[in-house]
């Protein structure tokens, strides 16, 4: 030990103590390495539950893997080439993106509006703020079942209400666009309040004097909202968009529970509301039990999310930079 200590190069920072001992050396090692140990649990868990399944799924996707079969012959990228030429897969991609767009856009607008309302001087303000989060606490499955009943063709309340205003009944499950709208409603019901709270937190960080000076300059409430609140919220909005992207592209419970009966996983006889995750499930489990093909779908979904997330990051750079300029008065 002592030899090592003596061998230290003279360029090393001057020791605080004139008599360096093992304690200080180890304490430096400690400072250097223990942070890694402190963050290790995350990476360990990520390795076990994130990286390993990812790698294993990829491995499976290179095989003709019958879920129950004893042998799984290696077939290279056959599953992928078959998948890229599979119209049902692309159909599910379009469904997923469609539902994503018509759920996320109104959702974020509504959340922004809600947050703005909640940011005002209200009676029982905390109560209101908690209330918008209630849909998020209820079980997704329960929400989906209730909504599936509301959107029923013959016995649903929505069609009953439509009937009262003279609109003829809509077959929500058998019409592709109607199914998208119904599922988007479920998603929005659940996530609008959550995003509103995120926006609210960001709004409260905006200095009050900005609004005061705007008011002196004669800006009305609407003008203040669009010219001060929204630009300063841009990074938060981008955050909400990314979170919604990840959730939206993996949408499963809502569309799955929206459909009931035999092979609900198909999302309707013409796959009207089948998302990518549902298509993955249909292939990996009942009725096909083709685990390899299902794994290939999972990987393409991963790629799809990566692409959409990359687009979001680009947006974030541009818009985020823009808003920073606006802040630096």
């Amino acid at each position, binding site marked *: 030990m002592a030899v090592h200590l003596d061998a230290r190069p003279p360029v090393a920072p001057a020791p605080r103590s004139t008599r360096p001992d093992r304690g200080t050396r180890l304490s430096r090692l*400690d400072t250097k390495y223990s942070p890694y140990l402190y963050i290790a649990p995350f990476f360990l868990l990520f390795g076990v539950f994130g990286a390993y399944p990812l790698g294993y799924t990829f491995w499976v996707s290179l095989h003709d893997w019958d879920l129950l079969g004893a042998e799984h012959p290696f077939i290279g990228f056959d599953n992928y080439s078959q998948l890229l030429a599979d119209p049902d897969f692309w159909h599910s991609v379009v469904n997923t993106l469609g539902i994503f767009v018509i759920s996320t856009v109104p959702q974020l607008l509504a959340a922004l509006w809600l947050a703005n309302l909640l940011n005002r001087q209200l009676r029982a303000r905390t109560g209101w703020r908690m209330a918008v989060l209630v849909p998020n606490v209820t079980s997704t499955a329960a929400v989906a079942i209730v909504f599936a009943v509301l959107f029923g063709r013959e016995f649903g309340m929505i069609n009953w209400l439509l009937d009262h205003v003279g609109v003829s009944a809509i077959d929500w499950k058998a019409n592709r666009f109607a199914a998208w709208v119904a599922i988007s409603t479920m998603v929005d019901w659940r996530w609008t309040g959550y995003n509103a709270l995120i926006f609210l937190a960001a709004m409260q960080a905006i200095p009050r004097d900005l609004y005061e000076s705007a008011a002196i300059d004669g800006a009305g409430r609407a003008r203040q909202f669009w010219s001060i609140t929204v630009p300063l919220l841009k990074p938060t909005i981008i955050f909400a968009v990314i979170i919604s992207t990840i959730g939206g592209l993996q949408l499963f419970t809502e569309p799955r529970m929206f459909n009931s009966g035999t092979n609900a996983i198909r999302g309707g006889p013409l796959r009207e509301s089948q998302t990518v995750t549902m298509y993955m499930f249909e292939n990996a*489990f009942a009725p096909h039990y083709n685990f390899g093909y299902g794994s290939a779908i999972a990987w393409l979904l991963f790629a799809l999310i990566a692409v959409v997330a990359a687009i979001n990051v680009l947006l974030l750079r541009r818009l985020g930079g823009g808003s920073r300029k606006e802040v630096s008065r």
Partner: protein
Amino acid sequence: MFTFTRRRLAAVALVAATALLGTTGCGGDDESAADGQVTLTVDVFGQFGYADLYQEYMASHPGVKIVERGTGSNLDEYSPKLTQWLAAGKGAGDVVAIEEGLLVEYKANPQNFVNLLDHGAADLKGNFLDWKWNQGLTADGKQLIGLGTDVGGMAMCYRTDLFAKAGLPTDREAVSKLWPTWPDYVKVGEQFTAKKTGAAFLDAATNTFNTILLQTAGNTSGYSYYDTDNKLVVGSNPAVRQAYDTTMDIIDSGLSGKYGSWSEEWVSAFKQSKFATIACPAWMTGVIEGNAGPAAKGKWDIARIPGDGGNWGGSFLAVPKQSKHQAEAIELAKFLTSAKGHIGAFKLKGPLPSSPQALADPAILDSKNSYFSEAPVGKIFAEGAKNLKPVYMGPKNQAVRTEVENAVRTVELGKRSPQQGWTDAVANAEKAAAK
């Protein structure tokens, strides 16, 4: 030195603890009780009607406790779960129910199940209808995967109140005479629909399609989507085309309520009396009672099925190799599939025995179902059961059936013309079979 060793130790311990957390999650389900009691888990779907039989078995076997899972669940939810358990080598019950459609897939991978022939099951052959016994055997006949529970002999269930409203006879003999064939059934349906009772004539075209197909196939070639060489014959088997065309007539006459079978709407339609007839394999009587509820008691009755005979569904009990109590599980499966077990199940929930002894038993033959206006269900179903003609099922039967029925459903919903629907059915079936 001592201080930071301890600190590092703490860090290491933290990592170890986290790692352990991951493993304990999967390792903590040792179910064997300390007191020498064996708990047997039975996985089922729908209604198998075993509750009373369990009580009896537990009374005579004090060391055994039986837990049933999945009662009332949908077959579509049950099958993937069971398959996952088998693939994972963990999680399945000690005795599992397998529907005949899924059995063909499991027979292709028999290594997941105990070979019941190694456990004295060969002596039980006489307890089952021949074809039911053979269905449980692998292709080479060397392994018996499952012992038969029920068969799905057919009838037509109908609502007497709706028939009366439409001016049709309500007596089951008279109703049976209305429809010797499916075209007659369509004609009665047209008369019914013309009276505008506010209800449809039947629940879903897919259910009727499957009934006609199994009947036609049973009476002709003996196979439906696959021939006995496991070649896909959706497009060339006349039985499939004939069933499809008859179903198109039904759709064309506007007889279907278009409720997707087993959907929430379908269940609601039972409760709201929205259709008058439903093709009724024996096990369906329990489903109808469950869906329509006590309010509809005495409003249903059972008549002859149009056409002749047919078998839809029926299940088997098997013991997965992963069971830790195989010997006990095999004994229980044998008990539940004995003639006595078949009778007990029939009495409770109506699944029709596949045991000739049970079918000849007065307990079955004389039984009446009070929910179905005291219909002599034993006589109606048991008499036809011995002459049932089974339909062969190929390896991807479930996936192919799904495609064909979905094609029928697109026509029913007006999304496709009958001709387009047929093209879809054949093309999608081929695609599904290749997956």
